[in-house]
């Protein structure tokens, strides 16, 4: 476990994240220009998708893949209920904000996942390529559970119809690119991927470094401006990833995934969305306070996962698998 921590903290990817945090806390004017940050995130989506698709084209879709998908979707639907209960009782949030935050914790963070994959690969436990598909499948379900909780069962649909909402979620640029590239990877297969691999594979880790630098800047700047987040919510933003991460990892081992894939499922459960879900909540639950859910997921849970929890989950997976 100590080794894992060392490995985490000598990985350039994590070090760039720390540099971002440090620069923002030192009030440096360092910023990644906005269109570049957006482009880095599009690149990462395309690269993850295409790699996952190529991997599935190689391995095919078998019972393991299907059970991992099933486990992910079920986790996405159910995790928000647990989060909601904690947020409402211990966190003292109202119903709407509890539901909105719960949706974030049921959904996933792509960058946390990718960082974890890098670290697991470095430890010789590369997760299966199909985990990308699991990740994509986990984006949406939590949004539905969160809305259900926020609005109470059977209440009227807020300012926006569900159809509109679902269209919004499934045509969200990240999801479209991730899934589109996944399909391209599956169609093209390893030979199709070959000519573009210098771009999508060789550059990947470097781009991830710069993207995490930016995420570090954003996370730290947000926490310095934050007002809405109490100590209770701060605790929850650390407690939920620990519990969800452990549960997800155990579930992964239970359904027979290999060590790396089980740990990856744990990371997906542990991570909180800060891309797709905030956008959906802004549209569907405008009464909810973005200051709460963005600060919790982006400025507390995300750094906690990257710096500490990925290491814990990896250690747990090795233990359970051993």
């Amino acid at each position, binding site marked *: 476990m100590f080794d894992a921590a060392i490995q985490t903290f000598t990985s350039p990817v994590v070090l760039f994240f720390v540099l971002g945090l440090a620069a923002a806390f030192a009030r440096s004017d360092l*910023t990644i220009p*906005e269109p570049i*940050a*957006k482009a880095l*995130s599009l690149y990462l989506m395309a690269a993850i998708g295409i790699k996952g698709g190529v991997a599935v084209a190689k391995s095919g879709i078998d019972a393991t893949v299907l059970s991992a998908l099933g486990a992910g979707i079920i986790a996405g639907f159910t995790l928000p209920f647990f989060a909601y209960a904690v947020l409402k009782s211990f966190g003292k949030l109202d119903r709407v904000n509890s539901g909105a935050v719960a949706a974030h914790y049921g959904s996933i963070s792509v960058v946390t996942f990718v960082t974890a994959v890098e670290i697991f690969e470095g430890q010789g436990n590369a997760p299966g390529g199909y985990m990308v598909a699991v990740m994509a499948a986990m984006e949406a379900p939590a949004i539905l559970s969160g809305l259900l909780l926020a609005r109470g069962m059977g209440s009227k649909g807020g*300012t926006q119809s569900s159809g509109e909402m679902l269209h919004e979620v499934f045509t969200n640029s990240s999801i479209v690119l991730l899934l589109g590239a996944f399909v391209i990877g599956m169609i093209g297969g390893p030979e199709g991927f070959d000519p573009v691999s210098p771009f999508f594979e060789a550059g990947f880790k470097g781009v991830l470094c710069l993207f995490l630098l*930016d*995420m570090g800047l*954003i996370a730290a*700047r947000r926490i310095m*401006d*934050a*007002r809405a987040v109490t100590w209770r919510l701060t605790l929850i933003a650390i407690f939920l990833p620990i519990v969800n991460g452990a549960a997800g990892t155990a579930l992964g081992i239970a359904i027979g995934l290999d060590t790396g894939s089980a740990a990856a499922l744990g990371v997906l459960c542990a991570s909180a969305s*800060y*891309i797709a879900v*905030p*956008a959906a909540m*802004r*549209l569907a639950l*405008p*009464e909810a306070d*973005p*200051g709460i859910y*963005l600060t919790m997921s*982006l400025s507390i849970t995300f750094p906690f996962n990257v710096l500490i929890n990925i290491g814990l989950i990896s250690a747990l997976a090795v233990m359970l698998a051993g």
Partner: protein
Amino acid sequence: MIETVTRKRIEILADTALQKRVTSAIDKVGITGWTILPVSSGKGREGPWREESVVGTDKVFVLTIAAEDKAMELAEALAPMLTDFGFILSMWDVQVIRGERF
């Protein structure tokens, strides 16, 4: 000398994610057009924000020029959003050339 007519110029600061609601309202009122300008950061009662499209905190300026009656109709239509989402709207009189376009 060239002829000018007076119109209302309305500017709305809105979340990029919600920009379509504003432009739909403009279209619905029957105003002929609108123009979107980028915005990079700001501060209000809810603290500072920066343009960060990765986490969806970016905003835009929607600008439209219209005759007074349509302008007031638009302001009326947008009023609830100003409260719900914290949009900002300001308007004033401008002179335009070729006023039949607006």
